[in-house]
């Protein structure tokens, strides 16, 4: 009889709290529909690894499957990269190719990454950890995992939780800060969309070109940008439709399925239940806020010099949380003027943010790697 209850002696209150954390993540995923594909597996994984002497994680010489998956899929950066093939296959760069200038907003909206990086150093984080925290502002889960893992950051679980949670919270985080830095008149600026035909050759050459340019300046980002653009090349080449479909659906789903539960390998109570987790969540929020402000302010700056006025709200879509951010901007435009359709512009900025966030990550790896 004693043997049945033996394991209870190994239970700590921190583990119980982690069950609660797991429960909250599962609740947010199911009830609030916040990034359920990631938060639900992470939540369940948090419970799984925090059961005393859990067989799912390595205990001494006894190898656990989640620890093994972590070694095989995240420690070598394979899962985030495979996921990028799927994401690349999902993205239509058409609106961006029609109006390449939109990429500038994507670049400006990465300000939050670098600002938060500096803020994290102010609060005593080491340079590489600060960079990993700053990259929450990439608003791009795989990039956050890739960078935090590359720098072997101790804070990866908190960083990943922050990145995915805030991505889901973009519709709540962005609007008040967009309103804060814009006037009603600015928000009512109408922008016409001229649809230009993009040749197949341009669509095919674009991913190749992006990979080469980024690779030359940020060689450590080649894997990230390369896999993203490989997915896009499969989509655009026109002869690999079945592979493109597989990448978009089967591959992306399979990797996501394993990614969430595997990240939980690092959500062990001793690591996660520290007060600095709250600090990292706070810094992550700062990253998202300053990404938004950076994009909007850059659009306002351009308006000082351009005859054709830009609705500064589209700058906020450069945050890369795709496609939520574009939808937020479009909706806000309609709220101000029900004939103001900003969707195509904001989608263009949004996909450019996807590229820019990877470039930002690559530059950080190049600077500090």
């Amino acid at each position, binding site marked *: 009889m004693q043997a049945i209850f033996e394991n209870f002696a190994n239970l700590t209150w921190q583990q119980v709290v982690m069950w609660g954390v797991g429960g909250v993540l599962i609740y947010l995923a199911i009830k609030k529909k916040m990034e359920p594909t990631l938060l639900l597996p992470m939540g369940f994984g948090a419970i799984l690894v925090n059961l005393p002497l859990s067989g799912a994680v390595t205990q001494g010489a006894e190898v656990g499957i989640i620890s093994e998956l972590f070694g095989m899929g995240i420690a070598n950066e394979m899962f985030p990269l495979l996921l990028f093939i799927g994401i690349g296959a999902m993205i239509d760069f058409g609106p961006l190719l029609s109006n390449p200038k939109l990429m*500038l907003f994507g670049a400006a909206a*990465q300000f939050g990454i670098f600002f938060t*990086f500096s803020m994290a150093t102010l609060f*005593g984080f080491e340079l590489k950890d600060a960079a990993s925290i700053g990259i929450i502002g990439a608003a791009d889960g795989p990039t956050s995992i890739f960078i935090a893992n590359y720098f072997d950051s101790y804070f990866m679980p908190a960083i990943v939780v922050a990145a995915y949670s805030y991505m889901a919270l973009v519709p709540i985080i962005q609007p008040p800060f967009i309103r804060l830095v814009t006037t009603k008149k600015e928000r009512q600026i109408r922008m016409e969309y001229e649809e230009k035909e993009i*040749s197949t050759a341009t669509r095919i050459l674009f991913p190749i*070109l992006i990979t080469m340019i980024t690779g030359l300046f940020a060689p450590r980002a080649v894997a990230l940008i390369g896999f993203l653009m490989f997915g896009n090349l499969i989509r655009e080449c026109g002869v690999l439709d079945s592979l493109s479909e597989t990448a978009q659906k089967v591959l992306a789903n399979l990797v996501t399925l394993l990614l969430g539960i595997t990240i939980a390998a690092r959500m062990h109570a001793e*690591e996660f239940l520290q007060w600095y987790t709250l600090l990292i969540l706070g810094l992550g929020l700062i990253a998202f806020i300053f990404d938004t402000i950076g994009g909007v302010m850059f659009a306002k700056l351009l308006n000082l010099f351009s005859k054709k006025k830009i609705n500064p709200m589209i700058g906020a879509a450069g945050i890369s949380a795709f496609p939520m951010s574009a939808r937020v901007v479009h909706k806000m435009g309609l709220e101000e003027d029900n004939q103001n359709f900003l969707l195509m512009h904001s989608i263009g900025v949004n996909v450019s943010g996807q590229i820019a966030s990877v*470039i930002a990550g690559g530059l950080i790896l190049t*600077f500090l790697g």
Partner: protein
Amino acid sequence: MWMNFIDYQYRFKVDVGAFAGSLKWMALGMVGIFFVTALIIGSVYLLNRLSSEQFKQKLRRFFKR
């Protein structure tokens, strides 16, 4: 696996020196990202131009000569 990490100690401090040092990376990062972006924009314009019907016609005319 995480036993390696438990030794890690993060202590909260306000490190103005480190913050000032990081501003260099912030500036370099923003300059870098705008530079790479400008190159990409330039290349896309070039791609659009080279694949336009007008350019193709010019090429055809050139080779017919």
